[in-house]
């Protein structure tokens, strides 16, 4: 469903994506992790062309992103994107945030869009917030609305770019629960995250990146128990040590 073949990307002279080869099949959950600056955010942003690629081929849901003639707006309507900073529309209520794209892009009626939006809001546990404004919500609530907003377009793929990194610790769980529920429903997902618990429990595959290269690609169990690459071992040590220190 998402196929990277020899993808390269440069920011000026910085080689941010170096020969990426990945294949995500329908219904699969791929978690991308790695130290900061490894190119994982850039990688996920190429999938809906928030960042165009410079070399190689990238095919997403049948759309060829290396072809300039591809109607990128059409593809983006099929791909939900959830940002680290939520990026809700602050001038619109929760319900309008969710119904805007379906009514304007899919041309469905306002009434129908609102009914669907309420189903989604109930699913993320925020039906009572339909008329609230983003600034009235906590970070975790905003991110759950952002997920509902993305789902309202009935996307075939969902992309999550560090969806819990901007959240207070006590709100991370509520967002991960929504994502887990989504994964169990069979959604094709690519998730950039440091939440190794989520990766272990939900991911079908983990890709580890460093310096723009996918160093390791493995089943979560293998990745966490038997990391092959030295950088991956180091990364996991740094990530897991503080957690072990907390638990007696």
């Amino acid at each position, binding site marked *: 469903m998402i196929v990277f073949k020899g993808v390269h990307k440069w920011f000026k002279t910085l080689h941010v994506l170096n020969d990426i080869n990945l294949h995500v099949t329908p219904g699969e959950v791929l978690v991308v992790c790695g130290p900061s600056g490894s190119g994982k955010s850039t990688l996920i942003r190429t999938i*809906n062309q*928030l960042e165009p690629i410079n070399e190689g081929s990238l095919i997403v849901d049948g759309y060829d992103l290396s072809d300039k003639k591809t109607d990128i*707006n*059409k593809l*983006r*309507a*099929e*791909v939900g*994107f959830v*940002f680290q*900073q939520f*990026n*809700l*529309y*602050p*001038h619109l*209520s929760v319900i309008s945030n969710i119904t*805007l*794209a379906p009514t*304007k*892009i899919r041309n469905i009626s306002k009434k129908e869009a609102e009914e669907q939006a309420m189903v989604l809001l109930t699913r993320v546990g925020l039906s009572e917030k339909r008329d*609230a*404004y*983003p*600034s*009235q919500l906590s970070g975790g609530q905003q991110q759950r609305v952002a997920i509902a*907003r*993305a789902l309202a*377009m009935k996307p075939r793929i969902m992309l999550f770019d560090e969806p819990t990194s901007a959240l207070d610790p006590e709100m991370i769980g509520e967002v991960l629960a929504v994502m887990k529920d989504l994964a169990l429903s069979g959604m094709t997902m690519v998730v950039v995250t440091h939440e190794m618990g989520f990766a272990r429990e939900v991911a079908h595959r983990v890709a580890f990146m460093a310096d723009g290269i996918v160093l390791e690609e493995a089943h979560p169990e293998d990745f966490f128990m038997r990391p092959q690459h030295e950088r991956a071992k180091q990364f996991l040590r740094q990530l897991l040590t503080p957690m072990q220190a907390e638990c007696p």
Partner: protein
Amino acid sequence: MLNYTFDWSIITSGKYFDWLVAGLITTLKLSTISIVMAFLLGLLIAVMRMSNSKPIRWFAHAYLEFFRNTPLLVQIFFWYFGSYKILPTAVNDWLVSTNFEFAAAAIALTIYTSAFIAEDIRSGVLSIPKEQMEAARSAGFSYLRSMQYIILPQAVRITIPPLVNQFLNVAKNSSLAMTIGVMEMTYQARQVESYTFKGFEAFTAATVVYLLLSILITALVNAYNEKVLNIHKAA
């Protein structure tokens, strides 16, 4: 001793009162049309100024440098005395037979003000985080639709205070239309003064009218801002 007898009755009733009311109505019409058109044109120029296409950006830039750096009075004279001369005779005759003074004044005020409004709106747009555009684009909105539904509604709210200034300038600048014979408020006050020599009363009336008009514009925009735009107050 004061060598002047006040006679306020001339501006509160009778023929001169009717003149002033006629002037007030013309000023209201001219200001309203110019404000609405200048706002819409300003939006368009602001969006063009931020376009991805170089020629469009260049055109918008040239437009606003040209129109905000030449005097409004010259622009009014240009549209009234200059523009129609280059048109075919038939169009020319038709224009002169219509209320061309009013049209020329409205065009000049609209274009002049749109240049300032475009820059105000552009600065509003630049203050919206770029992530808003990313969120809109990743939902599948085109650049223009993103502007329409997500960026401009937020930018316009931020731009309200400078926009009020521009609207007030239109109302006050509309008095320059008298120079080409538009019978607006200042023109009529001048007429009343010429016929009655009651300059103090006549221009007091004009002053009060402009003052009230300005206060009305400010109040209307603020009410709109409160009711329609300023809705995401923090809890």
